[in-house]
């Protein structure tokens, strides 16, 4: 039987990994991911997790080792954050192109310079195009559950694409909360052992990771694109099956809260979503029809789902813990593109918040909703607004 535990996001991920039984774990420590690898090392030491644990000398090597292990059919896990994620950038593209179904936890953390160990999404967003499936968890329970789901998604033979599970640094990785930890038997039943014909095999040798000339290369890239598109259906199926097995499901690519009749919708991802939920409740009590769209997967991007959810609202806002300097937040770019393709004409505002670990308060979220209300009334608002800047910025 499963049990209840009071765990941090990092520890919940470690429990999810233990239950998923990877053959090989290779990781390099970096704040705020470290607790995950510490817990996994403890589990291996105790024998509750029978994995080969590789103490690699860099993040590049961590992912490279996972690719090696995956290439002979092993289930693998790694975890990183921020500078480490960027250090393995080459391997990220390599792993998706190699179709290695690796699962990696990324503790979302700001990028230098200036140095910061605190949370934002600039690390994962800057690697949105690395070909990985990207999922963002809201709380510790979802973090644990999504480790297990991520293996089921990544290893599906229609997908065979690595999955990056993102947890907001500190706000999620270091916060303790109540978590249902499923039993090994339950997880074994849900997640069968990894089995693939596309591996190096002593009885059936393969050449892998090869070159291809311009005459074929684009076809391989098309396959990769199709696999991530196909993942949309697999993600929903896995989530439904998970719901049946464990009594918890998350809605697939997106989750919606109070959107049915909402006049004003904020789109957010990760742990910020919890704060938005709270504000939506408060505003509803005040008579304002607020709603929330939680993007769970940035790749594949839930464009149809978002269009459906916001179709009848008066204004849409997107909260980004990221900024593409000189333009706008990356989530906003994606949402805006989806709405434009669907010819949805409505005010769309981008709120940049929480960069470098700046707290995203309920007041910030209220401010965003009130900007949406004003925009829907025809008032001109900044299209890209930095929330809670501590200084004047007007010239």
């Amino acid at each position, binding site marked *: 039987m499963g049990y209840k535990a009071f765990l941090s996001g990092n520890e919940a991920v470690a429990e999810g990994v233990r239950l998923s039984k990877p053959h090989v774990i290779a990781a390099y420590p970096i704040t705020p991911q470290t607790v995950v690898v510490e817990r996994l090392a403890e589990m291996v030491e105790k024998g509750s997790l029978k994995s080969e644990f*590789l103490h690699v000398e860099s993040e590049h090597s961590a992912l490279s080792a996972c690719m090696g292990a995956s290439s002979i059919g092993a289930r693998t896990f790694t975890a990183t954050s921020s500078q480490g994620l960027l250090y393995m950038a080459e391997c990220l593209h390599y792993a998706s192109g190699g179709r290695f179904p690796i699962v990696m936890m990324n503790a979302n953390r700001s990028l230098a310079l200036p140095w910061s160990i605190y949370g934002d999404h600039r690390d994962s967003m800057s690697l949105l195009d690395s070909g990985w499936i990207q999922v963002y968890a809201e709380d510790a329970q979802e973090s644990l559950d999504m480790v297990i789901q991520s293996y089921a998604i990544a290893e599906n033979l229609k997908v065979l694409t690595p999955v990056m599970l993102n947890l907001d640094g500190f706000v999620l990785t270091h916060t303790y909360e109540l978590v249902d930890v499923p039993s090994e038997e339950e997880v074994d039943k849900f997640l069968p052992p990894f089995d693939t014909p596309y591996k190096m095999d*002593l009885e059936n040798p393969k050449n892998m990771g090869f070159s291809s000339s311009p005459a074929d290369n684009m076809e391989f890239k098309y396959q990769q694109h199709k696999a991530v598109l196909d993942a949309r259906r697999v993600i929903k199926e896995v989530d439904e099956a998970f719901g049946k097995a464990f009594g918890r499901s998350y809605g697939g690519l997106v989750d919606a809260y109070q959107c049915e009749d909402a006049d004003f919708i904020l789109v957010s991802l990760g742990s910020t979503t919890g704060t938005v939920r709270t504000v939506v409740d408060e505003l509803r009590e005040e008579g304002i029809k607020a709603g929330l769209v939680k993007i769970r997967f940035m790749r594949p991007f839930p464009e149809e789902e978002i269009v459906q959810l916001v179709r009848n609202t008066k204004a849409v806002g997107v909260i980004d813990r990221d900024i593409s300097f000189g333009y706008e937040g990356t989530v906003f770019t994606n949402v805006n593109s989806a709405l434009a393709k669907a010819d949805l004409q409505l005010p769309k505002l981008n709120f940049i918040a929480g960069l470098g670990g700046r707290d995203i308060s309920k007041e910030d979220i209220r401010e965003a909703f009130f900007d949406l209300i004003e925009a829907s009334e025809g008032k001109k608002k900044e299209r890209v607004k930095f929330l809670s800047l501590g200084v004047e910025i007007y010239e």
Partner: protein
Amino acid sequence: MSNGTATINARNITDKEFFYGHKACAGCGGSLAVRLILKVLGERTFTVIPAGCMSAVGFIYPQMCFLNNAIISTFPGTASMLSGIAAAAKALGLKDYHVVGIAGDGGTADIGLQALSGAIDRRDRIIYICYDNEAYMNTGIQKSGLTPFGARTTTTPAGDNIPGTVTQKKNMFEIVAAHGIDYAATASIGYIQDFINKVQKASRVEGTSYIHVFAPCPTGWGIPEDSTIDIAKEVVDCGLWYLAEFEQGEFILNKNPKEFSPVEEYLKKQSRFKHLSCEDINTIISSRDKKWEKIRKAWKIK
């Protein structure tokens, strides 16, 4: 992971070829090294080759030139990918196999050094072989950390101001040995029996092993394509390369020439050294002599 106990030689080595139909330049020393390594290790071998000449000539879809399992790694990731395969093979309970990486001088001494150091530190059960052709050949003959003093490359052009490469070759063998590695050796494709003996020995090591094999590149060195073996022998005979091993914390010299063949003759055969002055050649000779003085004093001589 057995190879039997008998020494492998020209008569009893397997008929099977594991690196066939590749598109390396005619007379390529690196491709001969790969071919011989795989003939010694056999079909139950996982081979990792980083981006570089051997991967560029061996795996161009749909022409797959490795008959055993083989994969291209990232340029810096030869050793780390090997570690991953070795760990997975253990976790999956595979039996009787080898895990070998074959990387060039740049892939080993420059961009891949960090991963190699990590693998040796972990004592991962892998064989790492550096085929040294003394420059980045796949990209068109640029200087690497193993390009010797004096050599002209496309990034160390020789002219009135600079005599080609001004740095000394990194001492990979001793860098690796300094890790306390289980087994390391130097070799040359000019001394084939010695080389395959060492590969065979490496295959029986319980931890990490490293072999640094000198493998000339006719294209990059400006030598006729039929003289690869001769030049690889001559470099040992003139003392600019040596055949040695590192085992149980001890350096062992395998071949101690009574007399060296003339260094000038070795250099003059290669267009990459054509420009060297007498002074440059004297610099090379005196650093050779210094090295050998040290070797003969400190190493066990077999």
